[in-house]
């Protein structure tokens, strides 16, 4: 059987399979693109640590044969900030979802982006809370249905990629699970960017989003993603009404600037020639 084993099986904790994802879920496609991106990039798989929060997508690191921290809901970026700062040699990948990253974890997202800490964040956005059974999320399209939006969602959804860009991320890209090549390339670019990289992958959740919104099969959902996808280029000439409900894909920003941990280390280098045995009380002296 080993001959027929999937080429990425070597990266998985085989003893943990089968996984918990529903048939037709987008998380498997994204996991595939992550491995593909690692192989395409200069990053060494052995050097990778993964961090996640809570939700379906946050279960991904638990299946990957690397050091993995499955944390509290929304807080993955806070944990990852500590992990990366304390050992900047690691390549840290954060896997999160729309609810985890933008609802309960929204504050951590904008601040990690602002700091430009060298993390590669893969946000799998399925427009719904899957793990808890299909509730509305901050990215659910206006008018879409969920168990907590039985009359349709009234709220304006986030375009998470725009949020990450506005907050200061230095690499931001957005694609769908119908564009696995582009997703792989974006993750590769994110891994190689020395700074905060945010890759949003709009994904299908046939079990809850599909069922609640009458897009019943995974194949139908992929078609639905494709039909609603436009490029950043196309979006330029469209009105706000025309853009409603559209998934605007492409590279939102790719503009490196000084990375957070590097900036901290610069300070250390600059001041560490200070004699540590000088009066330890110096911290309180006016200078």
């Amino acid at each position, binding site marked *: 059987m080993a001959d027929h084993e999937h080429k990425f099986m070597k990266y998985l904790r085989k003893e943990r399979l089968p996984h918990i994802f529903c048939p037709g879920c987008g998380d498997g496609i994204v996991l595939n693109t992550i491995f593909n991106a690692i192989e395409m990039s200069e990053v060494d798989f052995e050097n990778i640590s993964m961090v996640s929060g809570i939700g379906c997508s946050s279960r991904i690191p638990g299946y990957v044969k690397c050091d993995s921290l499955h944390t509290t809901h929304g807080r993955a970026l806070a944990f990852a900030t500590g992990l990366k700062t*304390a050992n900047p040699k690691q390549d840290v990948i954060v896997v999160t979802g729309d609810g985890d990253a933008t609802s309960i974890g929204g504050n951590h997202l904008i601040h990690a982006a602002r700091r430009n800490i060298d993390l590669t964040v893969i946000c799998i956005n399925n427009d719904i809370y899957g793990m808890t059974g299909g509730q509305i999320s901050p990215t659910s399209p206006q008018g879409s249905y969920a168990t907590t939006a039985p009359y349709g969602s009234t709220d304006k959804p986030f375009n998470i990629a725009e949020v990450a860009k506005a907050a200061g991320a230095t690499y931001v890209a957005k694609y769908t699970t119908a564009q696995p090549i582009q997703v792989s390339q974006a993750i590769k670019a994110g891994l190689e960017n020395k700074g905060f990289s945010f890759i949003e992958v709009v994904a299908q959740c046939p079990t809850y989003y599909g069922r609640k919104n009458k897009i019943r099969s995974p194949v139908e959902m992929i078609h639905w993603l494709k039909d609603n996808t436009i490029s950043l280029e196309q979006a330029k000439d469209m009105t706000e009404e025309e853009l409603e409900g559209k998934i605007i894909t492409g590279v939102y920003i790719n503009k490196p600037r000084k990375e957070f941990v590097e900036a*901290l280390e610069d300070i250390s280098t600059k001041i560490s020639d200070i004699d540590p045995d000088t009066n*330890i*009380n110096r911290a309180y002296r006016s200078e």
Partner: protein
Amino acid sequence: MADKELFVQGNEACALGALAAGCTFFAGYPITPSTEIAEVMSRKLPEIGGHFIQMEDEIAAVGAIIGASWAGQKVVTATSGPGISLMQENIGYAVMTETPIVIINMQRGSPSTGQPTRSAQADMMQTRWGSHGDYETITLAPSSVQECFDYTIKAFNLAEKYRCPVFVMADEIVGHMREKITIPEKVEIIPRQMPEKTDNYLPFDAPENGTTPMPSFGQGYNIHVTGLTHDKRGYPSTDDEETHTQLVTRLCDKILKNTNEITSIETEFLDDAETIVLSYGIPSRSALTAVKQARQKGIKVGYIKLGVVWPFAEEELIELTKNAKRIIVPELNLGQIYLEVDRVLGKYAKVELLSKIGGALHTPTEILDKIMEE
């Protein structure tokens, strides 16, 4: 280098204690009356190649120190009541994942934002069960600036030994009071215990009532750390009653069954004492003075100070107070540790609360008056 003498405030002494214990990482959020700890750490840590991060809130502060702890560093955060409330979620995570972290809480008047610049001891129960679930933690209560230094070092050592969150529960008075302290030339430090890398390595396979060595991320152990109920490999196993029972029982027992190892109690004049003033933290300063004054009046009164409040030193306290008829518990709250003292000692002696809130410390006279009430 000989012992050093300094004249510093309690907050600064906590920071110096953390550095002496080998701390290289601080993440925190400004809050009165603990902010000076963050300020000192922000100044000192870059000098030794450590890292200081001011996070976006206290939830993130604990998240960051847990992350840094898994990267192999000794970590601390500092806060006060409103911050400790926000931290509870990730404190529970540190308990469940057996992550060594130290949290310094300079208590202030509460509930809610309460009295930012006044003293209290009203967060004592929050360090025990403030997060959801069954668990045990370790809580130290310094009553002087010297103890801020000493107990912070001890907190780091206990965190490494028992792999759990350890609290240093001081208060606004101790935090802002200036006293002379001695920094010893040599400080006993427990380093992180690294496991042996074997083929069948089980990161969460601890002996009964014990802890297991902790690997760091990036060393090739490929471990999975989760707040979900997990088996000895660290893998989620959320439906199995046996796994959950074993895990949670072990997490509690590794503290409770080592209570005598963890706790520290100071006593004075207990031999013939009929009345005992039992205190922790800053009120013990007034308590000792009051007890000495009462002794001068010929009253048979003794003094007990809990250096470690949680785990509660039940057995030792029963032994120490067996001849006492009356136990007075002065606290800067409406009765928190009093309830625990009454639970343990109430069947042997009359336990009385001497409560004070509003920000000021009990005066020795107030405690003396209480001693002389009968």
